[in-house]
């Protein structure tokens, strides 16, 4: 786990990292997460002492106050907790609001209530619902990798997790 973060971190300088993610909240506490994106790894902070995950990235563990937090790869599978469609919004490369843009907040499987927000690929409004099971994919957004989700099992179908 630590190797993942370290390997990704070694690839680009802080200056290069900022240049790859213009306008994004890249700082000391989130840099490891963004370096993970460049390596197509979704890294979420986890406490090296008590094992609790947290999001967004903080410099200490909110559960035990340990500073030993490690950006750690998650599977990227989970259940849709919140789901909306933007009919308008800020300009972003490849986003055309003429087709309402889905935004979902996903409960990641690693820990109840640990959530990550992104869009859903290949999905119209009829195909994205609270309770859907999703998996992680990567797309290009303005030259940088963006973690996104794909619906792999519709809410209410056999084996689907109820919210």
């Amino acid at each position: 786990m630590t190797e993942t973060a370290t390997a990704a971190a070694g690839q680009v300088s802080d200056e290069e990292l900022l240049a790859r993610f213009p306008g994004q909240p890249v700082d000391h506490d989130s840099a490891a997460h963004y370096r993970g994106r460049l390596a197509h790894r979704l890294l979420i902070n986890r406490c090296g002492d008590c094992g609790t995950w947290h999001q967004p990235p903080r410099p200490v563990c909110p559960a035990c106050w340990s500073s030993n937090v490690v950006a750690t790869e998650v599977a990227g599978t989970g259940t849709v907790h919140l789901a909306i469609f933007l009919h308008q919004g800020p300009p972003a490369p490849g986003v055309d609001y003429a087709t309402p843009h889905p935004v979902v907040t996903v409960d990641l499987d690693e820990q109840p209530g640990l959530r990550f927000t992104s869009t859903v690929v290949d999905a119209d409004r009829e195909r994205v619902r609270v309770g859907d099971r999703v998996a992680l994919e990567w797309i290009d957004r303005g030259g940088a990798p963006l973690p996104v989700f794909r619906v792999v099992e519709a809410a209410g179908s056999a084996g689907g997790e109820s919210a």
Partner: protein
Amino acid sequence: MSAARNPMRDRNPLRDRVAFAGAATTGFVPRNSGRSMLSLTAQASIDVLRQCGLTAADVDGVCGSLVPAPTMQSALGIPEVSWFANPAMPFGNQVAAAVSAVHSGLCDVVLAYHTAYRLPWNTMSSLKDPFRRSSGTAGVSPAPESLFGSVGYTAWASRYIHEFGVPKEHFGYVAINDRANAAANPAAAMRTPITMDDYLGARMIRWPLSLLDMDVPVDGADAFVITTAERAADLPLPAVLVDAVALGATAHNEEEQTDSLRHHGQHVTVNALRARSSFWLDDVDVFFPYDGFTIITLNWFENAGWCKPGEAGSFLEQHRDPATGKILIDGRIPVNPHGGALSEGGTQGSGHVREAVHQLQGLAGERQVPDAKRALLTLGGFFFNAQGLTLRRAD
């Protein structure tokens, strides 16, 4: 982590010791006013000070939102202040800070204010005004996959519909009540009553919420004088006593990480306010739930205890006049009689506080609630911004 119980939570030494001596507004317009934020703020501030019979030299505390307190002091020529602050919005925070400062003796007379201003990211027309681009916080354009700000309420509305299976009409009752009430409020930006058909047919902005679910970007300002109960009693307008104040937030106060619809800032606020206040729902004469988004109002009805989770829409259906669309709880208690933020615009709650003060002073004109003695205000949203206030008329 489990919720800690604070045994001192019902400690409320400031009750009845601090008062609103007056409130004034410029009114709100849903277009660029062609004026600066400071110009609007100064107008409302001068109005309220004159109405209270005060001069600049009487003010020794300044507490506002976007316009820096030192800028206001300079603009109004306030000779000396011994306390000033610019807490984060919404306006319950300005009230909490000013009331605390007066009660603790850091100052005696606070000028408090909030200015609603159409910032560049609110509207396309605001974006075209070069002077606005430089005002407020830096124009960070969040990626569309962020729940920050307005988007967060839309996202939790999707959850509310999923969990409770309620129809969109339940949200509509909030919007229709506001507009019905705003018809009698000359300060409101939007005063035309709307029907359920209007509501359901409104342009979709972020599914599941539409244009009529969200407040309007406006220009305008509200200002207040907050002072000791003794001093307020000597001023020309009736004093409105601060009964209790509470702010509330949970550890997971980011929009996307918030625990659930059953545990967020509103629940903390209500628990704290109920413990500190001298009255609750049975003795409320007028109710001011925040309504920057309709989902916030439905949640406030449930969390304040008027009804159970998921039942706000059914409750409103039972307590509304289908002919006018106005809500009157138990046939007696109006809800946002000024039309709320959905009609006045995004006032961050200052409009709700101003109307509550005017109602309790008997100065609400044709909107006056007969013999209004006590008001309950539940301001702000779910996350880092839930706030509550109980006010009562001085007898």
